[in-house]
């Protein structure tokens, strides 16, 4: 079998050494997986040998091989790797226990700013004596292994160099996040569950999930900004904007944006003749010219996409590799409407009666700068339920409570959830109201049930729109109230039963209604078609807040859409805004807006006047 050599005092053949290494790697992978499952408090070997199992094991194996190649001590490499593994999974266990959230890639930002207060914070979760003992024990083990363990590789071993180079290359790949690594750590293969970080860890393992985020982070934002596209956009001539009339500080309106789950007007369905009795407040707004149509970037789900566009003004179109912006944009600071509000002197709150970790909102809203995010745990235990989740009335209660306690102008982003599907079996609290919902004759029982279930919950949303509207009107404070649907619902039967939509287009291309009440009324929404990324500039305009440069660009695109023949974005506007959004999100300077025609005239007159004065002198 070849030359014999020595390993830890035992005789093995040359071939046995790689076999031992392979078996150790397998054992390490199984141990890591066991710890992973333990930190999740699930059965020890659940999902073992799945794709996620191997994806999770890979980084630990690489670290083990790297340490082995560097130190040339098998036991040392193994013990150090296990120590790091225990530290990682210990942190994961504690974070899940206390924060109900696994360790995330974004936690790296906490470590980047490691200082005394961080240590103090961490010491609340893990006893410092244990940490110090672990470090001392580790040092003793390191010394002992160098003293008693023999070298694993022979002197000047080529294999050692090979292992070193391969493991270093693997580390470099993780740091750089090349595109091909995205195929290995892809959401489909790992079965990533975007709205649930903990379920992603269940499928992909903690390290697999972290590496997935790392690769996403490295790749998703790599979209080039085109100077040509921006220049072409700036050459377009939109209708002139009315000057923004900034109100005095005392008259700054409170601003409430309600993003209503799956809200649309069923009247746009072919077989539905009227919705005034179902949605009286939407029709009340329509009658006053306060309702437009908005293109949301998603259909049937993916609420966070519309929410992201509204809050940041960045079109999802600008980042085609991003499907779940809150998860894929791991930044400490995300430029947003919230920061504009802060600069204008506003307090800014987000309210959503669901788990704050859902879609990673806790992290994203912090990065956007909200003063506080009121999630499910901030609602009273007896808050009203309807449907699968908390009722929209509970959300209105919270918004009203916040406004009642406000001591300065307040911006609230309220995200509802009552209207969430699936609709076929969604519970309804008021069966009598449900059975009164009219349905065209001839629909199948499934379509009838699904339609009534859906309409029942959006009727509640409409009722809450009216309630909030009335509340704001009697407060004797100026206000801007915005209400829109985040997307159309993914109804399985009702669309077909209704023979589609009045405009003959498919469900996923339909627009949702947007309502804007209060504020200056020089550009009422009625009949205006906008995109959800324009909403921020609409709000600033209505509230009389001077738009920062990026929002001025969005306003320009909005006005181009209003121009005769507008209504859909042409490629020149979309490409220009996409490139500007990429500059904006990456914190790079934006080009200056060309002066408006009236400014040009004024500047020319001033220049002529100055020249005349010079001549007189």
């Amino acid at each position: 079998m070849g030359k014999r050599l020595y390993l830890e005092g035992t005789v093995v053949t040359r071939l046995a050494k790689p076999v031992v290494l392979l078996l150790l790697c397998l054992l390490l992978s199984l141990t890591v997986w066991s710890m992973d499952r333990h930190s999740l408090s699930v059965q020890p070997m659940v999902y073992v040998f799945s794709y996620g199992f191997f994806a999770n094991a890979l980084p630990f194996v690489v670290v083990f091989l790297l340490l082995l190649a560097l130190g040339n001590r098998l036991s040392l490499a193994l013990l150090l790797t296990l120590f790091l593994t225990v530290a990682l999974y210990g942190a994961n266990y504690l974070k899940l226990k206390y924060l109900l959230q696994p360790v995330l890639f974004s936690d790296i930002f906490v470590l980047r700013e490691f200082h005394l207060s961080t240590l103090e914070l961490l010491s609340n979760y893990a006893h410092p004596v244990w940490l110090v003992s672990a470090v001392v024990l580790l040092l003793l083990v390191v010394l002992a292994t160098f003293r008693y363990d023999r070298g694993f590789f022979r002197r000047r071993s080529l294999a050692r160099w090979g292992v070193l180079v391969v493991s270093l290359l693997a580390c470099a790949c993780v740091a750089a996040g090349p595109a091909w690594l995205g195929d290995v750590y892809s959401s489909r293969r790992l079965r990533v569950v975007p709205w649930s970080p903990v379920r992603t860890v269940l499928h992909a393992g903690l390290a697999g999930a972290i590496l997935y985020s790392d690769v996403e982070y490295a790749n998703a934002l790599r979209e080039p900004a085109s100077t040509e596209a921006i220049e072409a956009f700036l050459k377009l001539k939109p209708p002139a904007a009315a000057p923004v009339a900034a109100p005095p500080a005392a008259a700054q309106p409170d601003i409430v944006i309600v993003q209503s789950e799956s809200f649309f007007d069923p009247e746009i369905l072919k077989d539905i003749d009227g919705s005034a009795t179902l949605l009286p407040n939407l029709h009340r707004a329509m009658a006053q010219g306060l309702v437009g149509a908005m293109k949301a970037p998603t259909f049937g789900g993916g609420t966070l996409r519309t929410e992201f566009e509204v809050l940041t003004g960045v079109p999802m179109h600008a980042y085609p590799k991003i499907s779940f912006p809150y998860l894929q944009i791991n930044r400490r600071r995300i430029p947003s409407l919230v920061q504009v509000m802060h600069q204008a002197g506003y307090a800014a709150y987000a309210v959503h009666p669901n788990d704050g970790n859902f879609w990673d909102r806790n992290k994203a809203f912090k990065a956007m700068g909200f003063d506080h995010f009121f999630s499910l745990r901030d609602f009273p235990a007896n808050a009203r339920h309807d449907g699968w989740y908390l009722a929209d009335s509970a959300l209105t209660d919270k918004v009203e409570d916040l406004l009642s306690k406000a001591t300065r102008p307040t911006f609230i982003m309220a995200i509802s959830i009552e209207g969430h599907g699936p609709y076929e079996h969604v519970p309804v609290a008021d069966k009598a109201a449900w059975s009164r919902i009219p349905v065209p004759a001839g629909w199948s029982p499934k379509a009838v049930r699904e339609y009534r279930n859906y309409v029942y919950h959006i009727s509640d949303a409409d009722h809450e729109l009216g309630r909030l509207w009335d509340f704001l009107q009697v407060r004797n404070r100026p206000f801007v109230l915005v209400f829109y649907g985040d997307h159309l619902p993914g109804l399985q039967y009702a669309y077909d039963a209704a023979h589609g939509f009045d405009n003959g287009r498919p469900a996923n291309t339909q627009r949702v209604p947007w309502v804007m009440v209060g504020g200056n009324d020089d550009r009422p929404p009625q009949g205006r078609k906008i995109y959800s990324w324009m909403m921020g500039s609409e709000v600033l305009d209505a509230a009389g807040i001077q738009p920062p440069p990026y929002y001025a660009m969005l306003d320009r695109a909005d006005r181009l859409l209003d121009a005769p023949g507008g209504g859909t974005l042409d490629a020149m506007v979309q490409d220009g805004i996409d490139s500007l959004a990429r500059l904006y999100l990456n914190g790079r300077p934006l080009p200056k807006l060309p002066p408006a025609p009236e400014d040009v005239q004024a500047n020319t007159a001033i220049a002529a006047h100055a020249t005349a004065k010079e001549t007189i002198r």
Partner: protein
Amino acid sequence: MNRLSLLRLLAMAGVLSIMSGCGHSVSFEVSPTHFFECHGPNTEVHVRWRVPRGVKLPISIYVSRLGREATPWYSSGDRTGEQTTGKWMADGSSLMLRDAHGKLLVRRTITSDDCPKDKG
């Protein structure tokens, strides 16, 4: 392969079998342990248990959704029995059998797969 390597492999197998929870006489079967999410993300699970005389009664079955605290679901003074959960078991949900002292005897976690196209 020499004797020592063989011994190492056997030791590893022993460790693995301990880790996978073998080696005790409590029986706690759940069915299904794996399901396709064709009818939504939740499913019902049938539970059957058998505990030996050494286990102090009553036994309790706790349920924990992934990332959430475990809560008691069912308690029984019988050494054998079976029950069916509601349609609230999801991917990663665990059922835990505990004795009268609250000691964890067995944990079972159910898993899921996306609905295959031919079943959807």
